[in-house]
């Protein structure tokens, strides 16, 4: 008995040691070079061999862009460190805070928000000037990679990343099925969209392929929200502008519309148990007339439907409103510890080149610099490009809503599932979304 007490005491003592050791958890000290003003930058490249370490999760286009750059500068090689996208955000936090940080990392919003305030990410301001990036990249894309000193507000503050490829969401539609339902042209306004959905349903077809188990719900809801809420207000909210709120009638109205579509049976009954990938496959097999998805879906739907598939931006209330969609640029950031930052910056500059744009287009992706990229052949890729270019001109691109806070992806996915299942009112959903925002932005 006494032995038990002794060992229990020992265990408790050790527990207490653990509990008290390092009473306040805190990170590594801030690297010194973030405090001192950066030296004037040099844009000439070294001639001796240099190797850059790069960590990324999107094998395409990253590896293609790397190969393109190395072809131009054979003395600059890359140690390519690929990671699965599922864990990449955590990986970026760990690696950028370690002493052996990679020179370049693919930009992950949530991770950069965490590590940038502690000075682990290089502020690209001097390079922005030296390379004149502001005239080479679209302003809206540069803004997505800008972050306030506390990491809580996007679009202002230091330039932590440079765009490497764009994404854009909207509506894919099946031309022959739409005609079969008696609808002549793709809808131009939200009201026309509602009429088309009803006609399709009445014709006995599935109106929208939806995979709300993961991202599908966010993309569909995001389309409705941007249309009804307005681009500027929506972007302020995602950016984390102090005082912004989504808890307004227009957001409730957008969610009510979604709930209504679910009630009307515009989605398959299995939507909540279907992944977006699987919904895309259903659409590509001709099992639904519409699907709301992103530029990354072009390959799959084109392979399945060929010339039968088209794309339009999510319609607004009227034809006069700006063309809108959600998107985020897949960018790159440089570690504050990198000793080869000037070489890494040269790679970032390459991303704005016409050659890099050709590589992106060749992969069926949206190029960073729409103007300098070759026009794709007519078809869904061309539809998408035109829609995207118009949205860039209209300043209609809003960052994906789940970027608003680190927990927003879960809050939106799970909440929208409950809305689609008819178990959560639109007003309560919007309130929970704002509560998440408030918790994070304080």
């Amino acid at each position, binding site marked *: 008995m006494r032995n038990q007490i002794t060992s229990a005491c*020992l*265990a408790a003592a*050790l*527990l*207490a*040691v*653990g*509990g*008290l*050791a*390092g*009473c*306040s*958890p*805190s*990170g590594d000290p801030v690297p010194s070079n973030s405090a001192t003003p950066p030296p004037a930058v040099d844009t000439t490249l070294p001639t001796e061999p240099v190797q850059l370490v790069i960590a990324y999760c999107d094998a395409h286009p990253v590896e293609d862009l790397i190969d393109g750059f190395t072809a131009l500068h054979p003395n600059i090689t890359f140690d390519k460190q690929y990671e699965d996208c599922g864990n990449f*955000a*955590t990986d970026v*936090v760990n690696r950028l*805070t370690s002493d052996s940080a990679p020179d370049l990392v693919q930009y992950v919003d*949530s991770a950069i928000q*965490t*590590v940038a*305030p*502690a000075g*682990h990410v290089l502020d690209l301001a001097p390079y922005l000037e030296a390379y004149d990036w502001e005239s080479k990249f679209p302003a809206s894309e540069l803004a997505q990679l800008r972050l306030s000193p506390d990491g809580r507000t996007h679009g202002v503050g230091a330039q932590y990343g440079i765009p490497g490829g764009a994404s854009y969401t909207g509506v894919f539609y099946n031309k022959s099925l739409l005609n079969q339902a008696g609808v002549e042209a793709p809808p131009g306004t939200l009201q026309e969209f509602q009429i088309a959905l009803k006609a399709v349903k009445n014709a006995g077809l599935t109106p929208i392929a939806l995979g*709300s*188990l*993961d991202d599908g719900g966010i993309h569909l809801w995001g389309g409705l929200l941007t249309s009804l809420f307005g681009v500027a207000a929506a972007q302020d909210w995602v950016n984390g502008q102090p005082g912004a709120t989504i808890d307004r009638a227009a957001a409730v109205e957008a969610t009510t519309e979604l709930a209504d579509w679910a009630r009307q049976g515009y989605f*398959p*009954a*299995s*939507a*909540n*148990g*279907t992944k977006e990938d699987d919904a895309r496959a259903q659409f590509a097999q001709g099992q639904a007339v519409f699907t709301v998805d992103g530029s990354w879906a072009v390959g799959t739907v084109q392979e399945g439907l060929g010339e039968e598939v088209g794309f339009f931006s999510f319609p607004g209330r009227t034809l006069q409103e700006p063309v809108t969609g959600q998107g985020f640029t897949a960018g790159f950031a440089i570690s504050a510890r990198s000793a080869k930052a000037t070489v890494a910056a040269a790679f970032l500059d390459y991303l704005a080149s016409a050659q890099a744009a050709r590589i992106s287009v060749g992969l069926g992706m949206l190029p960073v610099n729409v103007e300098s990229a070759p026009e794709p052949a007519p078809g869904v890729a061309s539809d998408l490009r035109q829609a995207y270019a118009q949205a860039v001109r209209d300043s209609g691109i809003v960052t994906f809503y789940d970027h608003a806070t*680190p*927990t927003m992806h*879960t809050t939106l*996915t*799970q*909440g929208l*599932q*409950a809305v*689609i*299942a008819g*178990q*959560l009112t639109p007003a309560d959903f919007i309130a929970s979304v704002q509560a998440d925002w408030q918790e994070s932005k304080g």
Partner: protein
Amino acid sequence: MSVRGAARVRSAARAGRTARPVAGGRRQWSGLWFVAPALLLYGGLILYPAGRTVNLSLWRWDGVNQATWRGWANYVDVLTDPILRGSILHAGVLVIFFSLVPVGLGLVWAALLTRRRIKGLAVFRLVFFLPQILPLVAVGVVWRWALSPQGLVNQVLGWFGLDQGRAWLGEWDYALIAIGLIGAWVQSGLCMMLFMAGCGRIDRDLYEAARLDGAGPVREFWSVTRPGLRSEIGLALTVTVISALASFDIVFVTTNGSPGHRTDVPGLLVYQRLMAGDLGHAAALAVVLSGLVLVAALAAGRLAQGREDR
């Protein structure tokens, strides 16, 4: 006889220990040297990290920047936030499926086994134990397919005209039950194996005696098989209750908490909060979960020993 005999030996040992004087009150601290290596390992690898987790649970910290003191607030959130609290309730529901159902099925199987010699036991053993040796991630992937709109479950239901193309794991009312049934499938084999082995140890004479006394199958099960399997039941309950409360793999692979937080379990939320840079809540929930597992495991063990000590 063996039980009572053991008790007698134990009490004798206890008497001996107290009877032997502790050398004038001096304790043999030199003994500590012998346990030191184990103690260091256990302390360094288990207790110290556990203590750090407890410490972390009192802060708001993203893992990189300055932490702010939260005190008990994270624990208050765990007990009041509907999502965090809901996950604990869901774990309770899973105990029914992961633990009570398999133990029940295992006992039925044991009861049948004691009534009749069954040929080809080795084959049964293999079939029952198969789910146990599969990685839970693989189990999850297979069942996700089986429960999908075009999956096996709907095909079978279709034979009876019941296929409505439901995605069972996306259904508001059925998703958690579906996960529970996957768990029951996994754990039943373990319970049956344990009880099969246990039945082999029960003295056949006891059954003969019971039958001579006119006991039916139910009486026989209740009076001979069940007491004979007590330690196996305790082990099965302990293992399965822990697996239910600490479940993560199957849920992560099949639903990831969907739909609308209906299948959130504590293990999943600890992971999600960790990934979202909310270490304080993750640690607080982990501490609460560990406490629950500890209490449940002790209770299950006590339940099994129960009458033996009396």
